[in-house]
């Protein structure tokens, strides 16, 4: 954590630490998002605003509905109800690939490296508006070669930034778990998103690589992107987030700066269990 609080963190310092609170400059605004599986209320979010240019950590115990909420927002799951806008545009019910093209790109908890494609092809695939992706145009290489070369240069630049350039021609399936996380993050950047949604980017990554991943996440914010990420590890979340949202049983139970959340009794309840917390209070 940098000693100097970021500009975004300062702008959030005055925001009240209460669930559903409005932010000064929200990029994502969601209201009444509900999703049930049978009788189970997986997601029941009344209101959430995500501040533009900030790193927002989404925490909560297992089964709190974080990933389902992610899936709904990114078009991978259909909600029972709910409206949300991204960058002022209504996004509710939009197909997943259109969400990505609109600039909201996600990664997955279980990494989805495209195994039997090279690392470089994984990267190049992700560029949007490729002329050669249209059927007829793809048959005439001169139509798309120049763009392909630009894309390749950009992909190589990103691979270099993520220290993966030496793997460019390897099959993605040969990468280690941590390298796949890096590849997924780098690949998401090829889409040139305005907001990156990372689903447990540190899960199953060794501590050394965790540090480098954390560096990359803050790097995204410093480049002006908005980051929303799901994470279990509280230390990680508190270390890099500008704002933390805590979910439990599908609902948002608390929001605030990392310091405020660390002391929030609701959050402690959700994580450690109510009884134990009350016993501690009594003693």
């Amino acid at each position, binding site marked *: 954590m940098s000693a100097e609080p970021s500009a975004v963190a300062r702008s959030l310092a005055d925001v009240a630490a209460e669930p559903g609170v409005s932010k000064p400059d929200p990029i994502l605004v969601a209201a009444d998002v509900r999703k049930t599986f049978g009788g189970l209320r997986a997601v029941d979010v009344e209101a959430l605003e995500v501040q533009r240019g900030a790193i927002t950590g989404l925490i909560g115990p297992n089964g709190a509905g974080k990933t389902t909420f992610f899936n709904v927002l*990114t078009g*991978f799951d259909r909600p029972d109800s709910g409206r949300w806008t991204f960058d002022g545009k209504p996004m509710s019910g939009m*197909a*997943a*690939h*259109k969400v*990505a*093209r609109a600039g909201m*790109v*996600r*990664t*997955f908890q279980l990494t*989805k*490296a*495209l*195994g*039997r*494609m090279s690392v470089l*092809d994984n990267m*190049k*695939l*992700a560029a*949007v508006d*490729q*002329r*050669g*992706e*249209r*059927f007829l145009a*793809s*048959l005439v*290489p001169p139509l*798309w070669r120049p763009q*392909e070369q630009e894309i390749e240069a950009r992909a190589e630049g990103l691979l270099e930034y993520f220290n993966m350039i030496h793997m460019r021609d390897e*099959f993605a*399936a*040969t990468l280690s778990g941590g390298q796949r996380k890096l590849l997924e993050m780098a*690949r*998401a950047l*090829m*889409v040139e998103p305005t907001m990156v949604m990372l689903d447990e980017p540190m899960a199953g990554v060794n501590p050394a690589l965790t540090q480098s991943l954390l560096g990359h996440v803050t790097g995204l914010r410093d480049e002006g992107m908005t980051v929303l990420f799901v994470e279990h590890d509280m230390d990680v979340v508190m270390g890099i987030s500008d704002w933390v949202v805590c979910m439990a049983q599908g609902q948002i139970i608390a929001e605030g700066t990392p310091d405020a959340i660390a002391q929030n009794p609701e959050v402690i309840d959700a994580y450690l269990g109510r009884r134990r917390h009350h016993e501690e209070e009594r003693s």
Partner: protein
Amino acid sequence: MDPAAIIANALRAALGPSAAAYALLAIGLNFHFGYTGLLNFGQVGFMLLGAYGVAITVTVFGGSLWLGFAVSLLLAVGLALLLGAPTLRLRADYLAITTIAAAEILRFSFRASPSRDLTGGVFGLSGFAEEFNALNPFTSGIQFGFLAYNQRQLWVLTVGWSLVALAVLLTYLLSRSPWGRALKAIREDEDAARSLGKNVFGYKMQSLVLGGVIGALGGVVFALNLQSVHPDTFLPLLTFYFYTILILGGAATVLGPVVGSVLFWFLMAGMDATLRQAGAAGYMPDWFGADALGAVRFLVVGIGLMLLMIYRPQGIFGDRRELALNVR
């Protein structure tokens, strides 16, 4: 036993019109299964529509051969859209079930007696190849060594293998383009492709239509070669031959389906000739009659294919490294 005659028979089949037709069907399937990962178990349905499209247009409606071609291809596009629209948003297994059922529905409806006026029912249709035969530029047959084709066969071969060459060129161009890259990404993980802004449904549909149309071309070549069509030619078994050919040659490779088809026909015809000659020469036990021959041929070819899969599981052109990867 006459080894030269056996080889001649096998080679004739391996380079023959049926091998070209099967190669086209396998190339179509390669787009579905090899590149996009679509489990189409009804490729024979596209073959049927290709064959009958020409046959019905020419014999029943008196249209020209070219109109017949167009009808065949349009029918294939229609079938692909019909199959794809409800199933391509679902998991892969649904397409598999739907396609195998659709191919059988087509076969049964074409052979049913109420459709006799249109399809000839169980008797099928014939006499639609005159225009094709009349276009034949060759004035005599050809003979290199022990390999002989007559004038008509030569014409079918020229058309058949030219279409194969075109389809191979198409595969080559597409598989090396960003379009082909998107297909492969969908094969690997369609959610990942979706998360990167790719219209997965659209690509799957394009792949299904393209592979179906190429398969229908295979049906056209098949019908023009035989000069007649019968519904019971188009058994589900054929789709599994096309899979065998594709995997034999190497799925998701450019030349795999072609070489697979040549090899498949070489093995089938070669084994047929060998067993026939062995029977005639009295090497076979008494119970070995004409029925047994067919069964034993499949048995031996089956064992051969199993050995190939054991020792070269990636097919002739496949990349072994790819197979060793633990995908997912």
